[in-house]
């Protein structure tokens, strides 16, 4: 898919946080939604090089999967699916609204204070695809 584009966006945003708060990036936490269109392992692989270029090796990327969460417009039921499905599990209708699991969420960043910051951050070009 377009994991590299998402990876570059993550690196830029985390680096902005590093610049605002100071310190060195040690850990990034992500939630990957079932309908985000991203394969978790491909995203982790796509993050490896840009993260190392920006902050050196040894950065931990923690991630968890988030199911697709739906709310039925007809009967009001809420349900979760691990893969793309849009039918209401209660009434069988298809008039469902997505209430979670549609995106990749940058949850948090651990910064180590008083460390020597990495040398001038090398950020990759804005957009590319692999």
């Amino acid at each position, binding site marked *: 898919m377009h994991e590299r584009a998402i990876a570059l966006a993550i690196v830029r945003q985390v680096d902005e946080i590093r610049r605002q708060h100071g310190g060195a990036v040690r850990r990034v936490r992500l939630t990957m939604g079932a309908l*985000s269109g991203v394969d978790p392992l491909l995203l982790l692989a796509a993050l490896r090089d840009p993260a190392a270029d920006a902050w050196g090796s040894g950065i931990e990327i923690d991630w968890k999967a988030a199911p697709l969460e739906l709310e039925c417009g007809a009967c009001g039921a809420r349900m979760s699916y691990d893969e*793309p499905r849009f039918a209401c599990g209660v009434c069988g209708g298809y008039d469902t609204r997505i209430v979670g699991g549609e995106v990749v*969420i940058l949850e948090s960043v*651990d910064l180590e204070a008083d460390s020597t910051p990495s040398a001038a951050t090398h950020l990759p070009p804005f957009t590319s*695809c692999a």
Partner: protein
Amino acid sequence: MPLQTVTIHRDVLHQAHLSADEFRRARAAEGTLVVQLMSSPGAGKTSLLEATARSWPGPFRAATLVGDIATDRDAQRLAPWMPAVQLTTGGACHLELPLVEQGFAALIDNSADHPLEFLFIENIGNLVCPAGHDLGEHLRVALLATTEGDDKPAKYPKAFRTSAALVITKTDLLPHVPFSPAAAAADARRIQPHLEVLEISALSGAGIDAWRELLLRRRADMLSHTSLSRHAAVNA
């Protein structure tokens, strides 16, 4: 060394959505309906735009930004019919808003026909990656050709879920292919029940009137919604 945890809890593409919303609002304020066409390669995006321009009664105040990995073939095809700017990514398999904004700026610089009534964005032929990227459109349209099979929508859930209309193309080939428009529409509506479904043949012109009516109706809705918002803001 002490660790500080900074909590963000935000969509990685949050800023991209905000920028897309800004583009959308700006175009609406100018009376321009932005329509994104998305499909597999060869499903007929460019042909649909040619057929739309060809059959438009009266002046067609429209332009297209067309995305491809390489060549400007589609922009060349569209040039006789409307201003067209080619967005060549050189590698990226989907368009993103910054490139669309650059293309739009180039369009306005070179075109005497601003503001437009319709801005079409023809994405790169791909039903996967484009689905996750908001290009500032008011109307996202997925195309599915009769040659592709009527079982495809469920295979590309994000593309069809995020679309407002499904245009089944190449209906002139129906006598020769095992494709059921009803089955394709049903499959797509199990993902997005609110899809408007049209069947067209760019070659024969069948269904193009209904497509034009959809565009005009969606633009009218956008204009009335924009003027209501302005009225509400003025009277708040």
